[in-house]
């Protein structure tokens, strides 16, 4: 008998990971459980019994040397590893009503997570800038295609800056919750 499966596309900014976690949780309450992660933005689900799951995500680049020990720690703590989307690791844990299981239990470690995202994204800035400046410099030669390329480059740069600012703002909000 074939299980019901489906896939969805949805874009979340890095600083909207809590919305993403809530979205996955609400889908599980309807019986649609995250089964696999695809390319960024693509989620695969499998139908089952409605369950109260807490979904939580961590960001770990490939510089993590001991992924096996990392996953074992989560497993020991009762978190099931669902999959990986780019550098985002997805975990879930059954939650009883009133419970809010967390993988990050203080603001400092949450801030570190967002900082890891920032460092990862910093690499893309030179690439985008080169893309922008080349399309700008070659604008007179290429006519309509040149304009289109320039618009794409500008668009990507704006999205990039928007994304980075969003993360910085999230870090700022978290910093304010730290009592010193």
């Amino acid at each position, binding site marked *: 008998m074939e299980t019901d499966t489906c896939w969805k596309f949805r874009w979340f900014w890095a600083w909207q990971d809590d919305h993403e976690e809530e979205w996955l949780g609400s889908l599980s309450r309807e019986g649609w459980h995250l089964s696999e992660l695809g390319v960024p933005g693509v989620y695969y689900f499998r139908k089952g019994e409605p369950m109260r799951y807490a979904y*939580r995500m*961590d960001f770990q680049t490939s510089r993590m040397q*001991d992924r*096996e*020990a*990392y*996953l*074992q*720690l*989560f497993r*020991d*703590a009762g*978190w099931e590893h669902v999959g990986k989307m780019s550098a985002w690791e997805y975990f879930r844990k059954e939650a009883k009503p009133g419970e809010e*299981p*967390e*993988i*990050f*239990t*203080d603001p*400092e*470690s949450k801030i*570190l*997570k967002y900082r890891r995202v920032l460092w990862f994204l910093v690499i893309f800035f030179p690439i985008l800038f080169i893309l922008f400046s080349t399309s700008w410099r070659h604008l007179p030669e290429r006519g309509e295609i040149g304009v289109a390329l320039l618009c794409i480059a500008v668009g990507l740069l704006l999205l990039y800056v928007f994304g980075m600012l969003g993360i910085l703002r999230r870090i700022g909000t978290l910093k304010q919750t730290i009592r010193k």
Partner: protein
Amino acid sequence: MTKADEIQKYLPLTESMFYVMLSLVEPLHGYGVMQKVEVISRGSVTIGPGTLYGMFTSFEEEGLIAMVKEEERRKSYLLTAKGRRVLSKQIERLEIMNKCAAEFKNRL
């Protein structure tokens, strides 16, 4: 940097850091630390796996803890001499606070 400064820069420890370091006075692996912190803090502090993994990584980088063994994908850590010095200094601070608290408790 003098030895005193070397220790001072880690203080004061956050509650989570304090309890994790206390738990590593003897060798213990990740989940063991999570359970121990819950017990010794009387349930007032919980450490999530994401937080703990980050702490292990940075404590190890700073030379405050060292890995002593790895069994079935579980790493056990132990406080180093430097880690013990930091923890002792933190406990000194807490003892001063405790004394003050006891003195002033009656006036509250």
